[in-house]
């Protein structure tokens, strides 16, 4: 067959599987071969579970032969390495969990297995999801498939690179401050951070619990809808998951945006440091959407200047608390040979955690320590309320908000590693959605002069993922950006 199976989208592969033109074993084998061929250059995976994947593909083929096929039956997916897979290593990109083998599956994994999906392996990430470039991984380096000298974005950089380089048909990552949307933008694919509470986080290694959300990364919008259908919904085991009705996310993939009001946050577009190619691509996308019947209105998010500061206080505080569990006692790395308990904790944590994780633990511990709590955590939690109100007010006059995902295309590997504050500031457009708990999505909307992908961010009201998907779908149908693939 002339068609390269690893290049298929999920919905196309599903059609071919249903017509028995291909088998899941052929498809999975093709994707595993693709991984073998390009992994040296891309570095997307921490673990590849070849045997388990082929066994699940075989099982899927049996199901299909009996006429039982659902949208993800026999579809090979990758998973960010902070979502627990029973019996299969889950490292969180950290030396402290390098050999951790979870005794249970995350709800997400249970759901994907139940849907018949094939799990290929676990993807690289910034250690404990702390970073915007995947350079903070304690285990390996991931490169951008479009330009191997550039970062893939982060923290779900391995997941995004694996989708962009056709090393899987789709992936799941996590997004605490942009960690799905920003790498999707840098790798020229679709990424969605659902509403906080939409997807169960049981079995997701916690970073900042009031911000973390699991979401899909895919080759096109239809695939994003299919992945959302498979994993959304309330879970008794995640007390922050929300009992909201789950729609069929493919039902909203309809043509026509007549009457849609797009809010353009004035603060985002007047912010300095916006790359001219990014700015031009976003402007062009807005014209395309207007051509489809949408209307653009100016809106104000007055507390935008404080988003980065609020985020880094809250995320670091929550991280310092969540990461206290890594003490070398019950699981994970232990510094051997210590005879004193406190010394064992200290050596375990100092040797097990990388630099960025230690830096954030220190910031968080400082901000929560006696005498500083009100000035930092207390203050940030209040400003967070104002940031949420900004969005509520904006959504009184518009249906969705549109902005860039990142102010520049992917930067060079090593360019920002020694300057954490600059790295933090590069996330200004994505952080607010996590603080407000609203859904956000990245859709390819152009390329830089240097040939790097640029993403458009669409944000909406709580539990209104359908409208984001509809806008993204209409834009995708009217553009070709998602059809261009990196050459490896």
């Amino acid at each position, binding site marked *: 067959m002339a068609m390269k199976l690893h290049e298929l989208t999920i919905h196309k592969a599903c059609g071919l599987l249903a017509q028995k033109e291909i088998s899941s074993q052929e498809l999975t084998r093709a994707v595993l071969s693709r991984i073998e061929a390009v992994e040296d250059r891309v570095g997307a995976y921490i673990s590849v579970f070849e045997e388990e994947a082929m066994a699940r593909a075989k099982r899927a083929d049996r199901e299909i032969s009996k006429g039982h096929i659902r949208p993800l039956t026999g579809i090979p997916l990758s998973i960010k390495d902070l979502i627990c897979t029973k019996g299969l290593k889950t490292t969180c990109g950290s030396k402290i969990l390098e050999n951790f083998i979870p*005794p*249970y599956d995350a709800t997400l994994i249970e759901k994907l297995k139940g849907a018949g999906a094939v799990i290929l392996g676990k993807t690289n990430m910034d250690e404990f999801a702390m970073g915007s470039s995947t350079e903070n991984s304690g285990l390996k380096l991931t490169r951008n498939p479009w330009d191997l000298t550039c970062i893939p974005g982060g923290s779900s950089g391995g997941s995004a690179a694996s989708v962009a380089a056709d090393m899987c048909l789709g992936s799941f990552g996590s997004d605490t401050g942009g960690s799905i949307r920003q790498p999707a933008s840098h790798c020229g694919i679709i990424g969605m951070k659902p509403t906080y*509470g939409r997807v169960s986080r049981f079995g997701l290694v916690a970073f900042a619990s*009031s911000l973390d959300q699991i979401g899909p990364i895919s080759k096109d919008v239809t695939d994003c809808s299919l992945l959302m259908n498979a994993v959304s919904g309330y879970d*008794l085991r995640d*007390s*922050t998951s*929300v009992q909201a009705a789950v729609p069929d996310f493919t039902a909203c993939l309809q043509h026509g945006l007549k009457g849609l009001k797009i809010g353009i946050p004035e603060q985002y577009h007047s912010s300095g440091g916006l790359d001219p190619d990014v700015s031009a691509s976003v402007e062009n996308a807005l014209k395309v959407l207007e051509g489809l019947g949408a209307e653009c209105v100016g809106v104000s998010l007055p*507390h935008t*200047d*404080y988003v980065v*500061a*609020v985020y*880094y*206080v809250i995320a670091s505080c929550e991280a310092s608390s969540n990461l*206290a569990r890594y*003490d*070398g*006692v*019950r*699981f*994970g*790395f*232990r510094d*051997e040979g210590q*005879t*004193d*308990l*406190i010394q*064992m*904790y*200290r*050596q375990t*944590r100092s040797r097990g*955690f990388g*630099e960025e994780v*230690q*830096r954030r633990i*220190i*910031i968080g*511990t*400082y901000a929560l*320590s006696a005498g500083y709590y009100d000035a930092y955590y*207390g*203050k*940030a*939690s*209040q*400003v*967070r*309320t*104002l940031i*949420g109100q900004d969005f509520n007010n904006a959504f009184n006059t518009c249906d969705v908000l549109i902005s860039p995902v990142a102010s520049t295309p992917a930067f060079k590997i090593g360019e920002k590693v020694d300057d*954490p*504050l600059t790295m*933090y500031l590069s996330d200004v457009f994505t952080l607010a959605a996590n*603080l*407000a*708990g609203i859904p956000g999505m990245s859709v390819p909307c152009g390329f830089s002069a240097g040939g790097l992908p640029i993403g458009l961010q669409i944000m909406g009201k*709580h539990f209104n993922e359908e409208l984001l998907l509809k806008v993204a779908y209409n834009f995708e149908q009217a553009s070709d950006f998602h059809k261009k693939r990196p050459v490896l």
Partner: protein
Amino acid sequence: MKITDDEVIHVANLARLDLDEASLKKFSSQIGKILEYIDTLNRVDTAGVVSTSHAISLVNAFREDRIQEHLDRDQALSNAPEKEEGSVVVPKVVG
């Protein structure tokens, strides 16, 4: 400087981290800059503003108190760096 070396050492101790001289210098300077940046929050008038701890406000998530299957002891201990007779082994705690 926004944060002194001694404060960083104190906080690192609270967080059970052991910093060498080079990391200490680097962290003091970087964290100092980050904290100065965070101080921009003081420009915001937050008098009377309630705090947000969760973006989606949920009331207590209660569940039935029913006996369910859980990890057995061997599974729970399967990742322990050192174990003996169904327990985790740690360095001596009481002197």
